[in-house]
C-alpha cells in the first residue's frame, strides 16, 4: 500500500503539472482538493482519466470523485480494491 501511495503521489504531480510540489509535500491523510494542493474541477476530471488509463477503473459520475479523491489514503484504497490492470 505504501508503494501504491508513493506511485499515486508521483502520478498526481506529473499529470496535474504540480511544478513546485514533491511527493513528500503530500500527507497521506490531507485533503487533495480545496485547501492543501488547491486542486479544482478540471484536476478531478484529469484524475478520472488517470484512473481509467493506468488502472482500468471507470468513474462515470464526477460526484463520486468527492469520496475517491478525499485524500491519498482514500484514493489508494479505492485503486487497490477496483483496479483491473
Amino acid at each position: 500500500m505504501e508503494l501504491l501511495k508513493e506511485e499515486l503521489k508521483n502520478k498526481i504531480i506529473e499529470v496535474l503539472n504540480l511544478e513546485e510540489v514533491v511527493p513528500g509535500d503530500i500527507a497521506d491523510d490531507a485533503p487533495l482538493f480545496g485547501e492543501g494542493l488547491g486542486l479544482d474541477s478540471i484536476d478531478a476530471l484529469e484524475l478520472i482519466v488517470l484512473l481509467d488509463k493506468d488502472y482500468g477503473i471507470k468513474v462515470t459520475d464526477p460526484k463520486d470523485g468527492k469520496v475517491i479523491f478525499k485524500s491519498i489514503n482514500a484514493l489508494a484504497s479505492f485503486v487497490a480494491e477496483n483496479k483491473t490492470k
Partner: protein
Amino acid sequence: MIIENNAVFFNDLLIFRDEPSVEFTDFIKKAYKFLKIEYPKFFKMDNLSKLAFTGADIILRDITRDKEENNVALVLANRSSSADTDIKYQKSIENKSDYYPSPAVFVYTLPNICLGEISIKHKLYSENTFFIFDRYNEDYMANYSAYLIQSGKAEKVLCGWVEFLKGNYRLAFYLYI
C-alpha cells in the same frame, strides 16, 4: 511591451533575455521565475496562455495590486487561434486503442481561455474579446479599444497580439487609458 526571440521588453527596455536556442517552455519558465510571479496554476496553462499571462502580468501587476476588482478590458488577437493545443489534443484521439482525451488539454483548445487566466489573476471583472486576423490589424483593434473607453464600458484596455504555434511565438501588448 513585447515578448519575442526569448526576450522581454517593457517600454522599449530589455528586462529579461535568454539564449535564442532555448525552447519556449524553458524560456517562459525562467521569465516567470525572474519576474517572481508566484502563481502555481501557471504550470497548468498551455503555451499560448503562459505567454499571454506573462505579458499581461508585467503590464498589470502595479495597476491591479491590492485592488478588489479592476475594470481593465482585454482585447487580444492572434493568427493561429489555439491551433498549437488543438494539434496536441487531436493527437490524443487519433489512436482508438489508446483513447484518453484529456480535459485539461481540451479546455485550452479555445483562444480566449488566456483572457480568463489573466482575468482570474488580476480580478478583471471586465469586457473581454478574442479576435483572429492574419496579422495584427491596428485599425480594428485600436478602434474597438477606443469604443470600450469612450462608451464607459472600460476604464483601461489591455490590447494586443499573442501568437503561439509550434514553438514560434510573438506577443505585443499595449495599454490604452
